[in-house]
């Protein structure tokens, strides 16, 4: 599936949920299914900056694609991480680099990418793209 199609899928799923509170509940649940993040990778060097809560990210090359693992101790951020990885994980570096982050606005999650914001998802996406460079 293309990145665009993946975003579209998630968007439709979220659009069906009637209110923001319920949306976040779902996002939190998505976090529960995130691939476990190894404790030994909770290193300062792997922290994504600019977040009110801690957020770790590590990338690994698997054949042609990049595999990311990430987590956060804030459950909403963790859910958003899951959501981002569902969109961006296991893709080629080109795909990731060329991806226009503005597309994420389609998801309709308030303030997801506001600059200077502290939920860290903007920084996460930046870091994901950086690691693909």
């Amino acid at each position, binding site marked *: 599936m293309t990145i665009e199609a993946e975003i579209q899928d998630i968007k439709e799923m979220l659009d069906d949920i009637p*209110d*923001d*509170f319920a*949306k*976040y*509940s779902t996002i*939190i649940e998505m976090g529960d299914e995130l691939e476990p993040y190894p404790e030994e990778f909770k290193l300062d060097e792997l922290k994504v900056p600019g977040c*009110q*809560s801690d957020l770790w990210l590590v990338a690994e090359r698997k054949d042609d694609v990049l595999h990311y693992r990430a987590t956060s*101790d*804030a*459950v*909403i*951020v963790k859910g958003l991480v899951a959501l981002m990885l569902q969109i961006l994980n296991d893709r080629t570096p080109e795909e990731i680099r060329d991806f226009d982050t503005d597309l994420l606005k389609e998801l309709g999650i308030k303030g997801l990418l506001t600059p200077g914001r*502290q*939920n860290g998802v903007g920084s996460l996406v930046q870091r994901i793209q950086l690691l693909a460079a």
Partner: protein
Amino acid sequence: MNKKCDFQILSDLNDDCVYLDSAATSLTPRCVTDKIGEYYNCYNANIHRGIHDWAERATGEYEGVRPIVKEFIGADQDKEIVFTSGTTHGINIVANCFCSDWTSKDTVILSEAEHHANIVPWQQLKARQGLRIEVIPLLPDGHLDFNRLSMAIQQVKGRCIVSMSILPNATGIMLDYQQVSQMSRDHGATVLFDGAQSVPRVKSDVSYCDFLVFSGHKIYGPTGVGILYAGDGLLDEMPPYMGGGDMIKSVRFERTTYNDMPWRYEAGTTNIAGVIGLGVALNWVENIGIENIYQHEKEISDYAQKQLNGLDRVSVLYPEAEKLGLVVFTVNEAQSVDVATLLNTQGVAVRSGYLCAEPILVSQVGRGVLRASFGIYTTQDDIDRLIDALNKVMAIL
């Protein structure tokens, strides 16, 4: 006292928003925005230098705010009132000008509970010229440790300034500022009070200090404007902070003469509309009566603390201490940022994180907190809605 009606932003349209972040910035009543509009629509000119009608009117309105501020904080003279861009700017002026020649022999004494605005300027000064910074801890009950303050003051060798927030924005516990003032002055120390949180809710009295700073945007006024009260004579001979127009008497390449107080510290075109708006905000507060505001916020704060203390998973910071204007808390086994995000989905706006006061919160809590803070428009019903929303949030976290 229900003052919601004075606030356009709280009219029916926004009725589903419970704004509990007034310590970050207060909402702005209609009279203030109207006044800002009046400036731009009726006499939109620069001040002091022009001699046409609009400049005249703007200058009169602008300078007319000085006596309003003077009365409001109990100062003696108009020239003791300097218009700044906010609390942060005011503290930076004092650190850079009053303490311009301080060295490692001289000391600034802070409390552990200071806002970054009252920490970083002193650290910068220390980095440049080596001044000593002494930090007085809080007691386990959240009040200042006066024994430690007394010891610290007695050990001072050179000059000393005691710089503390009257109402720390991360505790909500009033400083016994009269005692701080007396202890400091008994030992010849200068006193700077950060009134960012106190001036909007407690009667101010500058006879207890040498400098007082506060921000317009926290006292129902505009953003980008604040006040530095500087006791007569304290800054008259100091090298000014910013250089530019209006803060000079005459400029030659060979020799420049600085202006008198207070203009010496108001370089360039200041926030004219902001200053004029602040005057209206202070008059509006004065009309309601700061005593009445104090009473109202006291009740709301007590009520909020009692309700929060009643929730099992909630830990209030210094739960037994009396609070004013704000209550800081955490939810056990939940990250504050998650709680705040979910409260927001229910229309409840609180602040989360380290509240620009990392030292105290890192040491006392060790993680980001939540803060509910109040204004004149906050009602008991708002607190009930916070509690309901919190319960709903805790059910899924």
